[in-house]
């Protein structure tokens, strides 16, 4: 009996191959830049709009809730429980987000979340992301919440003085303040041909986008109801689709 069931399953899976609704894979490739150059950790001093020179030692963030909108305007949601990913700009393997089971077709928009959505939390299997977040130090030690972004390095002013550390850690503040954000980008994806989507992130935007962040004013931002939401706003703007 089991064999029969199995056979018919195979039949189900293969019989629709010719339909336009068959399922394909898509890789999201994340690349990190500062202004127009590929991000290099530690060695290079970049400059932000507040005339501060900074180098980057760590950049990690969580993305989630991936959705694609087809040409008819319908949204396909990637299964939420499988939809949490940790991007670590310093770890090659984490930069490729492999999605499978996507209906083949043409898509015009992609949406994903920055961080973890509290309205879902902690349903939909988000707790299964805990071990990954934990291994990557993306949990606050004293609270049951995720750190959405860890961005760290050193900075100094124009005058050559000893560099100081900076540290931005952004997450939601209990049920008080939600720093989850949604990123939406226009794409031109034909999954009959394309198997990959390149998303580039301009890291300098974390300092300078909607809000201008100055390290001199505050270089250690963690649970900060004034500045953490600004950083979250800026992060949303750092993503762009890379056209090949």
């Amino acid at each position, binding site marked *: *009996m089991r064999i029969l069931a199995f056979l*018919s*399953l195979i039949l*189900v899976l293969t019989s629709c191959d010719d339909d336009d609704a068959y399922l394909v894979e898509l890789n999201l490739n994340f690349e990190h830049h500062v202004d127009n150059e590929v991000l290099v950790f530690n060695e290079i001093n970049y400059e932000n709009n507040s005339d501060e020179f900074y180098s980057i030692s760590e950049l990690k963030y969580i993305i989630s809730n991936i959705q694609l909108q087809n040409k008819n305007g319908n949204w396909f949601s990637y299964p939420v429980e499988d939809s949490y990913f940790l991007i670590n700009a310093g770890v090659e393997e984490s930069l490729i987000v492999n999605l499978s089971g996507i209906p083949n077709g043409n898509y015009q928009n992609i949406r994903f979340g920055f961080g973890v959505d509290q309205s879902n*939390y902690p*349903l939909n299997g988000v707790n299964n992301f805990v*071990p990954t977040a934990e291994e990557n130090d993306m949990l606050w030690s004293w*609270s*049951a919440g995720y750190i959405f972004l860890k961005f760290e390095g050193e900075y100094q002013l124009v005058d050559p003085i000893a560099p100081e550390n900076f540290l931005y850690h952004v997450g939601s*503040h209990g049920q008080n303040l939600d720093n989850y954000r949604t990123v939406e980008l226009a794409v031109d994806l034909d999954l009959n041909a394309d198997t990959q989507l390149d998303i580039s992130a301009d890291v300098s935007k974390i300092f300078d986008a909607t809000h201008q962040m100055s390290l001199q004013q505050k270089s250690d931002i963690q649970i900060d109801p004034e500045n953490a939401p600004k950083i979250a706003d800026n992060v949303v703007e750092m993503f762009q689709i890379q056209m090949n």
Partner: protein
Amino acid sequence: MCRALYVLCLLFLLVACGSDDSSYTDIEDENRVLDFPQPDFFPSPTYDLEANPPTEKGFELGKKLFYDGRLSSTGVISCGFCHIQEFSFTHHTHIVSHGVNGALGTRNAQPLMNLAYMEDFSWDGSAAHLDAFPIIPITTDVEMNESVGNVIEKLKADEDYQSLFAAAFENENIDADNMFKALSQFLIMMVSADTKYDKVMQGNAVFSEEEASGKAVFEAKCASCHSGILFTDQSYRNNGLPINPEYNDIGRERVTGESDDRYKFKVPTLRNIALTYPYMHDGRFQTLSEVLNHYDSGMDHTENLDPIFINDNEIGIPLSDTEKSQLLAFLQSLTDDNFILDQRFSEF
């Protein structure tokens, strides 16, 4: 054509599976959904019982996890080590709770009961959902000092857990989601609503004169914060405890980053209060008399002291000796003996 084939195959699948795979239905029959013990005089639960309905097997698994030292790095500190049923699931041989290798925490273990009605968890609300709460004790170095990932690996290697997870959850997975769900199933079933107070409210008992006077004092002076049937309005407030420089615990500000929340802590329930000494977030008071003395004359005017305590030129809630003993009598009526003896929640 494809669609027709698909439907046919699906039909076939259903038939093929339905005929002899009776083991499936057996498991489902066996794993009964438990009746949530909702008292009619309680509010409706905040916990989403539909998303994670307590079942017989899930509860059993949750209880095993709760009393299992393997959730800690040293293998000996279980949840039940700090949350002891006799004391309404608190811990009071030490003022602040202690964890692996005797490491001291900075906070007093909270009682575990009526958690299905809470909006968020811990003294400062650092967990917004019960299913996520266990991350904190498991990973905190002064508590269990473990990692969730490592706990899962230990559970996967254990045959008892393999069969328990399989029986408790449809997807049969041993993963963090199911582990936390099982713990929640166990925890939310701990409803404590069978005190003398409840019996009196239901018309099945009467207060002594002392208790009745205590109730009146309580309603006049305490019930604005310790309000309603749960004896808490679930807000965060500063009740004027002098700052303990050893910890300088900023309370709710740690979660929100708001200086307006400095030194505010969750208004605790007062159910089973006679059992849950020591008192306050850092366990500074050993007895309820000390607590009452604090409200009467022990307050410091620290930042964000609740305005209720600020009168013309005095702070606090003046209480006469008579009122104090009346209050003590009333607070004793909030003890639920059946709860602390309930075998369903006991380790052995």
